[in-house]
């Protein structure tokens, strides 16, 4: 009988500690959620200037990518996804088509 009481006490202790853990985590998740909302709000309130900067940066990266690919092509390598990086013999319709699409 004594053993059973002891076992029950142990279970109770374990459950209590588990409950405490859950409570701690809930506070943490609540804090994260608030943080997320705050960051979202901040992101939306970025000024025109910052927005333009981001867009320009993206365009620059894209432009560099296009430049790199067309240079790679003119140096004699395929840039189409079929034979990317392989040495090409003569011009390739798919590379030209791909570069034209990127150009638009």
């Amino acid at each position, binding site marked *: 009988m004594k053993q059973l009481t002891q076992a029950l006490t142990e279970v109770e202790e374990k459950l209590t500690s588990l409950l405490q853990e859950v409570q701690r985590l809930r506070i943490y998740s609540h804090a994260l959620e608030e943080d997320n909302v705050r960051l979202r709000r901040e992101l939306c309130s970025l000024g025109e200037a910052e927005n333009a900067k981001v867009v320009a940066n993206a365009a620059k990266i894209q432009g560099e990518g296009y430049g790199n690919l067309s240079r790679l092509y003119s140096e004699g390598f395929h840039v*189409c*996804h*079929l*034979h990317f990086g392989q040495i090409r013999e*003569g*011009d*390739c*319709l*798919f590379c*030209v*088509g*791909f570069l*034209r*699409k990127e150009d638009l």
Partner: protein
Amino acid sequence: MKILCNRENLIQGVQVVLRAVSAKTTLPILSGILIKTEVDRLYLTATDLELGIDCSIPVQVIEHGSLVVPARIFSEIVKKLPDTKIELNTNNQNNILTVNYSPSQTTINCMDSEEFPVIPALEENHNISIKSSIFKSMVKQVAFSAATDENRPIFTGVLVIIENDIFKTVATDTHRLAYRNTTLEADTNMNWQAVVPAKALVEVSRLIQDDDEMIDIIFAENQINFKFGNISLLSRLIEGQFPNYKQVIPTSCKTKIRVLTKALLDATERASLVAREGSNVIKLKVQENALIITSDSADLGKVYEEVQVELQGEEAQISFNSRYLVDVLKVIDCEEIVIELTGSLSPGIIRPVDANNYLYLILPIRTN
């Protein structure tokens, strides 16, 4: 097996299936033709495991049986047979075929038919019918654009697309591209596409005897089967993804010229005679109402050709590989064509004037 047949039929059957006999095979059985009787016909079959051809000829069957005859020697003998009633007689115990053409005879050592690979019959769930003459013209206008380089297997095939009642074919070697479509007589309710070896399509086109007959095409996951007349041809499909061909077709142009096909073909062929060896470069200059084609070679000389054209849009200058231009001009049925250009680096488009079912794309050569 014991049968009686005539020489013409036997020659036809052997010649048809001979195309599928493997020239270089590690399996000796594939250098043979399977001959097998069924009801009142003799079925001849050959395969190199990529392509299988089956042809049946009418015979008088006295005793049923089957055997694999060595293709090379059998076809030579058949071709040289006298024009008389021919009796094929086999002794299945020792695989020997006796060809009797009274009063003479030839015996050939053969192989056991059990060893011959079974050519699978495809389920006829997905099939279409197309008129031979249309099929032939599609193959003629498209298949030559496929690559011959086995290192890029996908381009040695022709992309075949079926969308309900539209049948499309596309082939490219990445330097040029040919596209042709046709409307089928019946709606297939199918959406299917696969890459069929160009060789198989050319073979079917070559074996068609009657332009008015219909060809039945049966599609399966890895194979395609063409049935026409007394012939059945089975080919494996090429695995892999065919690139998006629509992406490479320019949607607008700056220069549009209309020119007589024959006049342009003659001029191009003459210009190609002295085109630089190897690269075959010819220069095209579009001026008001005239297309000037020039080519030169340090060793041979120069060619200057002028062809009358109708010009719409800007004047232009572009260089092409003469072979790619000659190839297409030879297969276009229309008397006049339209060439569309956009600068000297974008692909040129060639179409017949009277129909919008054909398109040929040719990539220019960069010259400095």
